[in-house]
């Protein structure tokens, strides 16, 4: 695009859209940046509106306060368990279904694809699904966090489309001639060639579990099983803190610090996703676009 000399009009156009882009970046990034600097600032500055560009009265008190909240760490542990277990189940089931439906020689391929796609248009709704989970005695177990959402139809179809459009049929045929059965073809030929889509779908599923809130408020009553998001809701939105309350000495400071702690808690809760994100982000264009655009 830049190989020819640009006219003045073009340059003006470039300038305008660059400025608009910078504004967009600021609008998206500033609230997130604000959370970061607020989490390192002293409560008086945060609550008094003294913070704008950098932390005021830099300190780590908010973070040390999080360390004292046991239920945060229980929630963290539970969420890690649900995320790892749930994502594994997701990947196995989605891959098996996507691979079999991507094959032209799959018996009843069209009707089965319809059976799956139809669930995106219509479903039983919240209560009938709840009744199924309840009748299977899954409520208040870790399985209620990973089984009802074991497959996301959209992800499955994106994966199927990727297998169909990005892996040459000849390669699968060649594998069959070399004596691979279908399981071996999937493991040794298709999956190694599908890194971008597997990476992206893993991110989608894992983030889905990490951020899951809905399933927990419906299926869980036992507080020991609560995932991080429920604990976050309790603290961020309902102000229930163990450290605040109790003795009255320094009550005011504690409440103030509790408000600032919320910023630090947001950072702690988002950190794993934000660490994971850059590694997968490079696959977005290859993975999601190929899969989604043909769907």
């Amino acid at each position, binding site marked *: 695009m830049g190989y020819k000399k640009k006219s003045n009009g073009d340059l003006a156009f470039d300038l305008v859209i660059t400025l608009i882009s910078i504004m*967009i970046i600021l609008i*998206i990034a500033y609230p997130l940046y604000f959370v970061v600097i607020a989490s390192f600032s002293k409560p008086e500055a945060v609550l008094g*509106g003294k913070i704008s560009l950098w932390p005021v009265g830099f300190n780590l008190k908010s973070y040390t306060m999080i360390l004292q909240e046991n239920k945060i760490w229980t929630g963290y542990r539970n969420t890690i368990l649900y995320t790892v277990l749930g994502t594994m189940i997701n990947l196995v089931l989605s891959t098996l*279904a996507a691979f079999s439906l991507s094959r032209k020689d799959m018996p009843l391929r069209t009707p089965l694809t319809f059976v799956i796609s139809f669930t995106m248009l219509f479903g039983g709704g919240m209560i009938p699904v709840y009744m*199924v989970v309840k009748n299977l005695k899954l409520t208040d177990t870790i399985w209620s966090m990973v089984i009802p959402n074991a497959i996301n139809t959209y992800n499955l179809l994106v994966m199927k489309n990727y297998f169909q459009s990005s892996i040459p049929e000849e390669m699968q045929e060649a594998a069959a001639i070399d004596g691979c*059965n279908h399981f071996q073809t999937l493991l040794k030929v298709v999956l190694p060639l599908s890194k971008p889509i597997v990476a992206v779908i893993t991110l989608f599923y894992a983030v889905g579990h990490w951020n899951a809130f809905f399933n927990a408020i419906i299926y869980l009553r036992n507080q020991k099983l609560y995932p991080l998001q429920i604990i976050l809701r309790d603290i961020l939105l309902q102000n229930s803190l163990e450290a605040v309350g109790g003795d009255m000495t320094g009550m005011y400071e504690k409440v103030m610090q509790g408000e600032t702690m919320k910023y630090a808690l947001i950072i702690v809760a988002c950190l794993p996703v934000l660490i994971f994100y850059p590694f997968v982000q490079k696959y977005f264009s290859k993975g999601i676009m190929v899969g989604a655009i043909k769907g």
Partner: protein
Amino acid sequence: MANINTGTKNKKSIKKILVSKWQLLLMFAIPFVWYVIFCYVPMYGIQLAFKNYNPKLGYFGSPWVGLRYFKQFFSSYYCWDVIWNTISISLYSILFGFPIPIILAIIVNELPGKKFKKLLQNITYVPHFISMVVLCGMLYLFLSPQYGVLNNILGVFGIGPIGFLESEKYFKGVYVISEIWQESGWGSVIYIAALAGIDPALYEAAKIDGAGRFKRILHVSIPGIVPTIITLLILRIGQVMSIGFEKAYLLQNDLNIKSSEIISTLVYKQGILQGNFGYATAVGLFNSLINLSLIIIANKICKKLFETSLW
């Protein structure tokens, strides 16, 4: 390679295909069972909407009550508020939110400099990965009338403090604007992909014809992504009634309930919290039926008007 195997191994390969098809079916078996149990059995369970459910009698034994729950819903004092909230939040977010990812994708497509392009994309994607609880937590922190940043800023201009989340007046605005902030970047991915698929020769031809940058956007870029826009619009219309439960539920409080109660939060409260399973299922069914009809109608209209459709 294939030539060597023809002839002698023909019979064997037929057998092989039969065997291998069983493998494909076996692979599909577990996902299929899951779909039956967690998608189709619940569809069968919709009959709860027409029954006075009694756990002891089960689905079969519970007595039919016909349309009682539907009548009960339509004659309740909150019925039209709840339906209107659901539809209006959705319409506002289509009206203001739907065009933004398209504009964003065009901006990304036009930007000079690959690195800056990537930077813009990667930053605008980030909010999509933030959990709804965290987003709502941020909204509470930023919009708090006592300490919130926004009210601090407004205070400088002598406005406020405004309780954005403590009033029914601002709820829908907060909902829609925060959704635009969170999802626009991610929503642009698919348009960026569609734009990348446009033949560069079209741009060259337009250039030779003397079209400036703006005209090229109007006459090459936008027509090139119209099919994508229509497909996504149909899908979006099919979800008019299924706006996010989580956000409405998390931002809800006694002060804004009149504009924040939507169908799904009502279903949750009636069904899960109060145990009125039949009633909640009926309200949920009403919701999904409208969604289904909307997507069918939207699909038909688009088929006629633009010759693009989902099926």
